[in-house]
């Protein structure tokens, strides 16, 4: 598969991803917009796996330093995004099930 084919493949994927994202997200009710924001924050935390590969392929000290920082940032992003989202959704979960109990 040559570069041109790869380009068009990428465009197909991007287009489908955009449609999927758009349609799925427009169904999220306003009540959940805060966790949606932090949740999509978590999702772009997948940048961590890219940062790991970048660091893993780094050879010069400069590359290693940048890669190291990128992994730290990516890990903070994904962990923080997840924990915050889960904390928020846990509240909705609980508030739905035991409406009489305080936090």
């Amino acid at each position, binding site marked *: 598969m040559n570069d041109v084919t790869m380009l068009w493949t*990428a465009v197909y*994927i*991007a287009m489908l991803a*955009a449609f999927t*994202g*758009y349609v*799925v*997200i427009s*169904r999220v*009710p*306003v*009540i*959940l*917009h*805060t966790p*949606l*924001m932090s*949740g*999509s*924050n*978590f*999702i*772009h935390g*997948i*940048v*961590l*796996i*890219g940062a*790991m*590969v*970048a*660091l*893993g392929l780094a*050879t*010069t000290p400069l590359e290693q330093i*940048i*890669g*190291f920082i990128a*992994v*730290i940032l*990516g*890990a*903070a*992003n*994904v*962990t*923080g995004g*997840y*924990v*915050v989202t*889960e904390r928020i*959704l846990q*509240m*909705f*979960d609980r*508030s*739905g099930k035991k*409406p009489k109990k*305080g*936090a």
Partner: protein
Amino acid sequence: MIDFSWAIDPVYIATIFFFIVGLQRMSHPLTARSGIVWAGAAMLIATLVTFLTPNLTNFTLMALAIVIGGGFGYIAAKRVGMTDMPQMVAFYNGMGGGAAAGISAVALLGTTTAPSGSLAVIGGLIGAVSFSGSLIAFLKLQGWMRPRPITFKGQQVVNMMILALAIVSGVLVLSHPSWIPLTVGMYLPLFFVLSLGFGFLMTLPIGGADMPVVISMYNAFTGLAVALDGFSFATPNYAMVIAGIIVGAAGSLLTLQMARAMNRSISNVFFGAFGATEEKEMQIQGSMKSIEADDVAVMLAYANKVIIAPGYGMAVAQAQQKVKELTDLLESKDIQVKFAIHPVAGRMPGHMNVLLAEAGVAYDHLFDRDEVNPEFPSTDVVLVIGANDVINPAAHRKGSPLFGMPILDVEQAKNVIVLKRGQGKGFAGIENDLFYRDNTRMLYGDAQETVGKLVQALKKL
């Protein structure tokens, strides 16, 4: 070592699957949590299999960085209060943008084979802007920096020039023409410094209260940067591409919705000082009439239906726990209680829902604008707790900066009680003539205190 790298692609695909399912399950509060838990588990496994990628080195550094970053993210996220959500989102978003910029930098330094370096340049630019911009947003929201817009003459021109320079240096990074005696390694710092600078400067003139819109946009930016960086590897990392684009779509959609609910355009947020169209000194008839907590308690006790309209002030006062107590008390007296939640009440979309959910108010008590507006005429008492703009009838009046913004029509209720500390204006800085209406009474004081007093008074009745 046995080669397990065949496991990487299927795991990444499963991760994307669970990300999408997780978002789909966010269409209802009760299914949302399990969705994010699955997505989190998938992401954890994806991180682990990434160690199996062929030809990697620096594993110790990698593990160390994950522990540092993950540990820090975990602790910060566990500690943060729900009122501080906006800056937290900004913070993590900045991290993601920074990571994306870092990937681009490493790719451009030439260790990884980038089939199309231009994508890495664009990704790096967007990531860096998102990083520095989110940082400013964080600092302003956290109160570590003056939240007021920082403006100077010719700002827009300066910003645009810096952006242009950043783009030029990006082109140089890719082409490093031989007639300029510089190497890639010398253009690259320039490129990133300019990109980061643009992010700073673009965010500085934006006021603290516009920040949620900005954060949401930077969220989309980071997604886009991650998607572009997905092409920085020998074979494209489609998991990054897809996840990034989904976030890009989510962020864009939320930004537009939020701006619409605030009655502002995106360009207005970024380039316009808010309130420039402020109306002439308005002639308000009547006066503000205050009331005591005991009298309100009596009023409530004789009501059939009470609607509570919370706003940013409730969050400031941390009154949600007391409000929950009040709700329980009223319900124990067979009084119907509903919450009217405006989409931009508070400081980020859905903020009130989160705060009330945290306090244990069941989400079936929460109603959005369209559901609750027809109910006000049949409501005996509306308690406005620290809300201002979202109930300002000026939105119905031509010429007002709020004109056209959809609001909660609380003024149609039989009695409106407004809980606030004094004469303070709302975020939009506009007089609210609702406070002067005949059926409106003001209950002054910090909302936590005044709601507490209401609870006490009701208990005594």
